[in-house]
């Protein structure tokens, strides 16, 4: 059975051009990029070319681009690195990815409540700030709901009430859809992950802007400007560079194309399934739904009276792959901390579904969901009705 893949917020396929760009660095140019000979220099040049691409995409000096092993590692480096260098408190929003939330919790930092869209409450943020704050971390777009943070407003609050603090944004979900270079000017630190935009797994970037001071968390040979020791993943970095190059060239057109598909998907589900609530949308004039609060690839809904795991099971049988909240290590779906932060009743949050689109998504994929999901929900509601009777 062919697959209609709606889990791009979890991971995307590696683009053909990316894979081709990577291949030579497995078989032909395999030297350690820190070496002195020609093959090593060729490896290093490939990494530095990727660094230039990321630097342009993140409005950062090339020497501020730190390649690492994942988006999670980039977040950890930002938070633990800033806390260790600055010796202050760390602050984040309650709807952050666990890669930010767990480090902040471990450091005994402050977790700030969000509004009903999952955006950090700027009043509460102001109250949480002070001269003792080393870092504030606010995600660019939420990994579950796709909701975009107004980084300009938030940056202003941070700069006013904690001028000494570093401002970090996890842009892992933002990069495929948003102008990160523009937003980068507001922040000191940006995390990215390659596999969310057509690159390989196992590569991330932390962009360190304006000479922000961090203390390395992995030390050894001093690679990556001393901020991340360990032999660089040359092929992976080359792949990330190529994928970023494509995103930067095609982002605007991809956003326009995917936005139309996403709207068709969400409108189609709203029209065919009763009891669906879409997160973070507002009805606008003319019966249209305004989804401008979210990135173009995100369709996030809650279905009344059914459970995520059940929907996912049934649509998988029809070749539709999606997810709910974040999966835990065992592979089970965990209750969503984002929806909890947004104040959603658990009864409704239980039926959440994240259908995330990506650069390869087609209209046929959308039609597949529209042909599958409504019947799955109806089947589950019939069963629940029988069980209650």
């Amino acid at each position, binding site marked *: 059975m062919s697959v209609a893949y709606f889990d791009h917020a979890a991971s995307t396929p590696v683009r053909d051009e990316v894979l081709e760009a990577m291949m030579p660095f497995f078989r032909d140019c395999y030297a350690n990029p820190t070496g002195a000979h020609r093959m090593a220099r060729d490896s290093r040049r490939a990494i530095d070319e990727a660094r230039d691409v990321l630097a342009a995409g993140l409005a950062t000096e090339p020497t501020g681009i730190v390649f690492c092993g994942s988006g999670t590692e980039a977040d950890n480096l930002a938070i633990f690195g800033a806390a260790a260098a600055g010796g202050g408190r760390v602050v984040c929003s309650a709807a952050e990815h666990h890669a930010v939330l767990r480090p902040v919790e471990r450091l005994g930092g402050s977790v700030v409540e969000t509004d009903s869209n999952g955006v950090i409450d700027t009043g509460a943020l102001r109250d949480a700030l002070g001269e003792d704050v080393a870092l504030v971390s606010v995600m660019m777009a939420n990994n579950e709901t796709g909701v975009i943070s107004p980084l300009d407003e938030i940056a202003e609050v941070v700069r006013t009430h904690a001028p000494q603090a570093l401002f970090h944004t996890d842009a892992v979900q933002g990069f495929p859809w948003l102008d990160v270079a523009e937003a980068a000017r507001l922040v000191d630190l940006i995390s990215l992950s390659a596999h969310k935009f057509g690159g390989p797994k196992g590569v991330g970037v932390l962009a360190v802007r304006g000479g922000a001071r961090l203390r390395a968390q992995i030390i050894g040979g001093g690679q990556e400007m001393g901020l991340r020791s360990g032999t660089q993943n040359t092929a992976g970095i080359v792949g990330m560079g190529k994928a970023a190059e494509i995103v930067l060239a095609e982002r605007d057109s991809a956003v326009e194309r995917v936005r139309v598909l996403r709207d068709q998907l969400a409108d189609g589900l709203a029209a065919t399934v009763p009891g669906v609530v879409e997160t973070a949308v507002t009805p606008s004039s003319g019966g249209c739904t305004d989804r401008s609060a979210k990135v173009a690839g995100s369709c996030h809904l809650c279905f009344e009276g059914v459970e995520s*795991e059940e929907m996912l099971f049934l649509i998988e049988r029809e070749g539709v792959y999606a997810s709910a909240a974040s999966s835990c290590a065992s592979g089970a779906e965990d209750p969503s901390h984002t929806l909890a932060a947004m104040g959603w009743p658990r009864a409704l949050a239980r039926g959440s579904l994240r259908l995330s689109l990506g650069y390869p998504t087609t209209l046929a994929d959308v039609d597949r969901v529209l042909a599958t999901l409504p019947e799955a929900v109806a089947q589950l509601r019939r069963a629940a009705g029988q069980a209650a009777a």
Partner: protein
Amino acid sequence: MRILAAMSGGVDSSVAAALLAEEGHEVVGVTMKLWGGPSDVGCCSVADVHDARRVADTLGIEHHVFNFGEDFNDRVVNRYADAHAVGRTPNPCIECNRHIKFDRLLLRAAALGFDAVATGHHARIVTRSDGSLRVARGADLAKDQSYVLYMLGAAELGSLKFPVGVLTKTEVRAMAGRMGLRTACKPDSMGVCFIKRGTRPGFLAERLGLTPAEVVDTSGRRLGEVAALELLTVGQRRGLGIGGLSAPAYVVDIDRASATVTVGDRPDLLTTTQRVACLEWAGEVASGPIDVQTSAHGEPRRGNVDGEVVIWGEPQPRVAPGQSMVFYDGDCVLGGGVAA
């Protein structure tokens, strides 16, 4: 048939799934994620999910994980703590069977279009002469789990399978070995799955706050003090901190209201009348002389059941309040209740 096989990551449920797959059924394996956090050592830890998944891979069947953690916490863990708070001795495995495995999972399986759910319990499902279904003891009496399944009636049993119930544990392990299942030699799970061995006092203290109690003998004479009446159970002999008595002392009563624990000789523990509440019957309400089992691996004793009272033929130790009492006709479970 389309069968959802509950796979805990242990050998019994591995073989249960394997047998059904061998019979040609369409089997999907599922592991329930019930608990997490620091005491995540039980039948649903990440390591056990891994084992279940790898067994499913060996069998060539699909494997999923269902998260019933919230329900498990509400209906099993919290109720376990609540029961201890009032000095009762709960059986959380039975509550998990009642509310999670044979309610949530069964309903979900039906909703997802499965014809049946299979588990690795050592019990059989038998058809009575009137055509009705009942739980019966497993072939391996030492491993028999019919006691913890007494709540199952016709409504559930029609869509359940216990494939290893006809086998001994030795046979199950041998089969797992022959089939190359990695769980063949995995030790049996023991104790309460959501509490790490030896940490029950801390677990309960965190949830309840523990109550110190006076220890008195049956005439009311003060013998000493215990730190937590919530950790005691009727019939208990050790851990009372009152050595030096002429005969072994047993807990014969726990009174939460007055924070008093009464201890006595073994004869003080014996009774001919045992009250039982929350009765559930698989079929008709039974009465008269019936075999009654009062612990998971205890010997059944003959008693005269009359409504919510069991009159023992021979005096028996008082059953700790909260423990299940299960009624049998030979190997066949008739129903059960909870000692009052």
